[in-house]
């Protein structure tokens, strides 16, 4: 049975996603840095 032609799938949804784009909305320091405790940030 012939099937309709399936379209290619773009895993990036047509966007050029950089690390900061992927992490948008997350509360990470400098976009992708995690801190252990507040004291570490203060230091």
């Amino acid at each position, binding site marked *: 049975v012939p*099937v*309709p*032609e*399936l*379209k*290619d*799938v*773009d*895993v*990036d949804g*047509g*966007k*050029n*996603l*950089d*690390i*900061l784009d*992927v*992490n948008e909305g*997350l509360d*990470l*320091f*400098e*976009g*992708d*840095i*995690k*801190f*252990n405790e507040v004291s*570490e940030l203060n230091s």
Partner: protein
Amino acid sequence: IIGEQYRWPIPVPYFLEDSLEINAKALVLEAFERYRLKSCIDFKPWEGETNYISVFKDSGCYSYVGNLRRGKQQLSLGTNCDRIATIQHEFLHALGFWHEQSRADRDDYVIIMWDRILSGREHNFNTYDDTRSSALNVPYDYTSVMHYSKTAFQNGSEPTIVTRIPAFSDVIGQRMDFSDYDLEKLNRLYNCSSSLTFLDTCTFEYNNICGMVQGTGDNADWQHVLNIPNGPSSDHSNMGNCKDSGYFMHFSTATGNTGHKAFLESRLFYPKRGFQCLEFFYYNSGHETDQLNIWIREYTDAYPNGTLTFISTVDGHPADYWQLYHVSLNVSNKFRVVFEGVKGNGISTGGFSIDDINLSETRCPHHVWHIRNFTEESAKQNGSLYSPPLYSKDGYAFQVLIRVTGDAEKPYDLGIYFLLISGANDDTLQWPCSLRQATMVLMDQNPDIRKRMSNLRSITTDPEYKTSNDLYFWDRPDRVGTPLTFPNGTQYFRGPGLGTSAYITHDRLHSRDFLKGGDAFILLSVDDVTYLNSSQPTPKPTAALTTQSSGSNTTRVPGITTTALISGPSITTVEPNVPNHCKDYECKNDGVCTVEDEKPICRCKVTSDWWYVGERCEKRVSSQDTVIIAVSSSVTIFVVMLAITLVSVYCLKKKHKKQLTRVVENPPLEKTSAF
């Protein structure tokens, strides 16, 4: 980050958590290979070391900076983090690197446009002074994989980072591979003097021809030349761009008799891993019956003078351009690589030439797709270039599609897609195709493999993945694909493609050596990654652990030696499963369950500043607590001793006074009678 305490011991222990996507797991291993090739940083599966990197899937891609000596240190690779440069970037954070634009002198090189930054995000553009961060005497690096792109945290469409040299405006934010300066810093930070898997690179620019030697027992020699009248007119390293340089080695078949040969033997190599990839460019301007053969001369105890083993014959036909060749080797002993040129029985006006040799203890790509005159060819094909039909090692037929978006007037980017096609083995293969990782690399043709910043993307086939029509995406191409015809008239089916439209931007494609001499090389591999679907073995203590050994676990860090205290027995070996006793026994605060006298007990996390105690590691104790306890105990003891002393003195004094009074009232009689 300044501070030896932030360094990791080498090899760095890692644990790939089950939550990770398979494609991400495979890419982590690929990223480790780039570290091993270009630095001395090695990684090993966690065997119970006190501190290790736990790679897991959370929201986003993130890491801590440096070794925080917190036992299990997490590094997240969430959705859309399965990109090799993203993984390299996060591991560089873990190894102790901040972002490039946060270095103390960055304002000399870039201008931060504060009014274009999202409100409240300005703190992401902080710098660290030279008491906190060191640039390790390496110049500011626009090409660093650790640099923000120009659009970081922007609130509109204007760039938030403007480079003081405009040419670097679109260079910052590359996510392809380590830059040269990234590697210089990494190698300085960890005192690297050699790499783990690199063996040799040679452009033949110098007269010593990289220590290669002309063989004996042959009829001719290889020549060290700049050009050959009938090709090649220039070398591959420089493509003729540098006057009076650009040497390569040439074996002429224009003279001599049929069967005449010349050997060119490499210097000695001492392999560590037991597998190697030899890569070189060659130019065949001879006759199609001429041969270029690859041999290995291996030295063993039984054969101290070496034995020659034939490896392969370069199968490229004569062509007026440089071609790329890979040879997989499996050598465990001291060896040399031998290039043998053999004159065939046809009339030749040229011969074989070789250039840009690289030898490393890595895996070769399975296929090379050479796209000649890339720009013209992609324009001719309306922006869609399909690779020739290829087979994976286990028999799946596939193609790769490169799609150019935009048109000639507007700068275009490249997309890349992996597609299954119908093949000769389809009836015997498993469908839908399960957990095959397709790796697609646009090769940076820098002559030195360590300096390449090749662009890699990979996808992994998910057998459960369905299309909107409820068909399995990776099912047999003759079930879900489109019927097509090859140029030779053969009919076949092509399934849908999975990939990205954002493989590489136009500007980056035209940078470096991606299109050297106008040609592109796409390196392709398809690997079965089913083994990554099972959990990484977790460390388990052996029977020897039933005896207590108080201990210290000494780990080697280049430059320093760190001794990490472990409470209780030290963990020595790895076995595939956690003991059954530990199944329902939960240790809190990252404690590790072990078995002692057939009873589960918790080994708690310890750092130099604090540690956990209690049956389930539920209580945290810090070194400050001990200081307080020690000081208060000392004060208490001192006060009690003082009190005892004072009371004793008082009692003695009172007793002595009493005695004195008695003597005065009743003087002793014996003294009187003596007179």
